[in-house]
């Protein structure tokens, strides 16, 4: 009997904002505990929230990028529950009037190889709403210490329809979502810093059934790989329970990515009654067309649109295009080189092969690279002009990476230019023929391959400077006529 999984994800993303969602206090990470607070963050008697419009801008942009319907009027609700990390004992969230509804995240599943584009799918979204983050509890032996620095940080909650069918799809979904959010500057999505957190609702059913099975919520998935591993583990667990005659209970489980195990956290019986109601301290906000138009103009090209354009208009192979669009800065770097006149495929090769390899080896970010788009364009031009050979180009690149000098300057400094001086070339060719009569005779008698030995000799004589194309021409003229 075959089972299939039905998965829905709830992703919390911290919005990159200078100040908290409902006060002017700065957001931050790693500051001394309880320094990023004020009366509103600490829920002192009498303190009131005031909306930070930047958070609303961010979620509207996200919605526009993911083809969501944007509400014309949105409002804030109180989600009431007692927990020490929640200073007001209610969280400002959105219940029945979220900013975004529907929409989808386009994903790409792994292809047959890195050189082949995988299947594209759209994962539909239910909604995206705004809410504020809570504080952080640090449990010590006998005490629990609370740091409210994170409390009030703007969060988006992105909720998918239960349409994800595998751990791979969930992985691709998070990868693609993350890429889009980083592209638009909405969040850095650093999961280690808790900027992106994911809960997965997982159920299984027999293939062919349409009814949903009992769902289990998997919490605490704090890396994209853990999401994939956790889902794989949970699906296996549920299939085991089902095939051994057991019953899957509705519960929340905590997944530990380190050990690969999950444990029950609470069952359905303990579900909260959040007593949602519209926050009377905050006014509903009307989002008009002009506002949306202004934000739409700030949106970047979508990653998959960029990938398609690179392939179709710039003639890049899929493998290079997919690497370049993974990171917006890298794609911008590439496009800058092209704009400076570099041939796209050549520039893409230098960037995806050499530059990324050397940056990784040196543990450097692209922003710290001494090699700029102009360097790449300069190097590609030298090769195109035939001024340097491919091996010289490699040497120039290595030098540029270290010194930051432009390609032409490196070539001049190191004397790494191909010789196209016909006189010198003819001299070297004649010498090579004289030194290797055997090969010369073979060429004359029709063995075309024998020319390579002579060419090698010319390169040696010229200390690598000879332009191989011209050498080939001259040798053929001298030998075959």
């Amino acid at each position, binding site marked *: 009997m075959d089972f299939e999984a039905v998965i829905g994800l709830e992703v919390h993303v911290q919005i990159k904002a200078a100040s908290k969602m409902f006060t002017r206090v700065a957001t931050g990470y790693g500051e001394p505990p309880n320094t990023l607070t004020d*009366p509103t963050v*600490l*829920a*002192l*008697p*009498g*303190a*009131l*929230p*005031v*909306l930070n419009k930047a958070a609303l801008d961010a979620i509207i942009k996200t919605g526009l990028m993911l083809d969501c319907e944007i509400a014309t009027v949105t409002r804030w609700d*109180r989600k*009431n529950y*007692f*927990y*020490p990390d929640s*200073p*007001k*004992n*209610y969280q400002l969230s959105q219940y029945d009037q979220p900013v975004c509804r529907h929409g989808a995240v386009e994903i790409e599943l792994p292809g047959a190889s890195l050189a082949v584009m995988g299947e594209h799918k759209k994962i539909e979204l239910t909604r995206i709403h705004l809410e504020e983050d809570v504080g952080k509890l640090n449990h010590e032996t006998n005490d*629990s210490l*609370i740091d409210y620095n994170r409390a009030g940080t703007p969060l988006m909650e992105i909720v998918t329809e239960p349409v994800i069918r595998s751990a791979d799809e969930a992985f691709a979904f998070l990868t693609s979502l993350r890429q889009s959010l980083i592209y638009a500057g909405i969040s850095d999505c650093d999961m280690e810093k808790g900027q992106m957190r994911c809960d997965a609702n997982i159920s299984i059913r027999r293939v062919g059934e349409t009814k949903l099975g009992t769902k289990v919520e998997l919490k605490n998935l704090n890396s994209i790989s853990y999401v994939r591993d956790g889902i794989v583990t949970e699906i296996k667990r549920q299939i085991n329970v089902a095939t051994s005659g057991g019953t899957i209970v509705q519960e929340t489980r905590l997944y530990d990515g380190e050990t690969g195990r999950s444990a029950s956290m609470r069952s359905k019986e303990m579900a909260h*009654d959040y*007593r*949602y*109601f519209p*926050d*009377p*301290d*905050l*006014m509903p906000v009307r989002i008009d067309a002009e506002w949306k138009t202004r934000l739409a103009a700030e949106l970047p090209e979508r990653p998959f649109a960029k990938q398609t354009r690179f392939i179709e208009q710039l003639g890049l192979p899929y493998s290079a295009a997919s690497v370049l669009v993974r990171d917006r800065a890298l794609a911008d770097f590439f496009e800058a080189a092209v704009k400076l006149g570099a041939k796209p495929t050549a520039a893409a090769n230098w960037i995806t092969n050499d530059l990324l390899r050397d940056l990784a080896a040196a543990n450097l970010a692209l922003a710290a690279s001494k090699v700029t788009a102009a360097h790449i364009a300069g190097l590609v031009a030298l090769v195109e002009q035939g001024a340097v050979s491919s091996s010289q180009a490699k040497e120039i690149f290595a030098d540029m990476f270290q010194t930051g000098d432009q390609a032409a300057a490196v070539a001049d400094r190191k004397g790494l230019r191909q010789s196209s001086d016909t006189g010198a070339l003819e001299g070297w060719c004649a010498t090579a023929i004289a030194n290797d009569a055997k090969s010369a005779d073979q060429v004359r008698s029709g063995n075309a391959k024998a020319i390579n030995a002579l060419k090698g000799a010319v390169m040696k004589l010229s200390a690598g400077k000879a332009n191989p194309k011209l050498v080939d021409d001259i040798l053929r003229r001298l030998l075959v006529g």
Partner: protein
Amino acid sequence: MAPLHFQTIAELSGRLARRELTAVELIQSLIARTRALEPRLHAFNSFDEADALAQATASDARRAAGQVRGPLDGIPIGLKDVIAVTGQPLTASSKILQNFVSPYDATVTRKLKDAGAVLFGRLNCDEFAMGSSNENSAFGPAGNPWDTTRVPGGSSGGSAAALAAGEVIASLGSDTGGSIRQPAALCGLVGLKPTYGLVSRYGLVAYASSLDQIGPFGRTTEDIALVLRAIAGHDPLDSTSFKAEVPDYRAALAGPAPRRIGIPKEYFGEGLDPEIAAAVEDAVKFYRDRGCEVKEVSLPHTRYCLDAYYVIATAEASSNLARFDGVRYGHRSKAATDAIDLYAKSRAEGFGAEVKRRIILGTYVLSSGYYDAYYLRAQKVRTLIRQDFLQAFTEVDALLTPTSPVPAFKIGEKADPLAMYLLDIYTIGVNLAGLPAASVPCGFTSGGLPIGLQLIGQPFKEADLLALAHTYEQAHEWTRRHPAL
């Protein structure tokens, strides 16, 4: 001329300007009076003499340097103990905040400081502003200066009692369902509940956010106008605060007052004390004699006001008061064993009976399965109530009603919470509709207790409302009577 402690802001600021008096002399006189009266009155939860003297000294220094900040400079003003003042206790008359000192100023506090007022004392009130008699204070009831065995009204009872007794020159209260107007009526003062959104709520301990509004108590409408001018206006820290220019309310007193007055027939039914009915009818006659057009109007949903109020107010309160949990500040139970126990015990020990009653009611009406039947329905009723008022205002400029159905009653007399809730029947609709309304003294009972007249105005037309009240006040002696204490 009245003794110093019974004078108005207008009179005292003139004397300060003429150097007939210093701010220090004024506050010293009030401190002495407060010390003498408080054992009987208990209008204050606390007062900081040294701080008040320092503020008065600073005011005198400003005056000497020619840097007077306006008519409130040097005037002692008391604040209800639900309004935050940096470095001063903020108890909301609750044990749960018994030892809490505010680290920040409410916006009204900052504005009064900017105006040079001498902020004097933390005034007694019903716990978390829940009540109609000031008997729900965890620190004991305040007395009514006209008869200290009687209540001053609630929840801003201390703010009314301190002013009526001459312990302060003006005061601020908060009004969620009548908590400024009702004690103003019971203590013979002018009290104004401004339009929702005119005065910032930032720094006001929240009871029911959509209904709460800070407002002034004064001896006269002129004093109310002066204080309102200082505290009104847009506040970027309160998203419900209205963006508009603040008019010169005092100048408007002399201007034309509204001439079309509506008498809501639903406000003159069963339960209204006959002496109050008679006094209010005299006031109606006064306006008619002055050439006003007086007509009966109907507010048909009036009978649903109390029900809608107790659903909405308690729902908001149950959420607003969730922050009092013993975790960050305030009372923390020493007997707690875990987090849930910490909440349960700290709140059980810290909150009084009326507060608990309202939290439980509010939790219930918001709970899943009941939300639609109670909260959502109450909000719809609220809309109808507001529409009633706005409909009436297409025919008239202001409404005239009694403020309270009864005069000040004995402390301990009303033990039934529901009977107590009925005391707010004339005031609650105004909060549900977000309108401005003032209570103005309009006579005394045969037993010598003050009677209040309520004037209800159109949104943000406080200037008109005060002008209308001023006309009445000028033609009567009521505001010049003071309790013999």
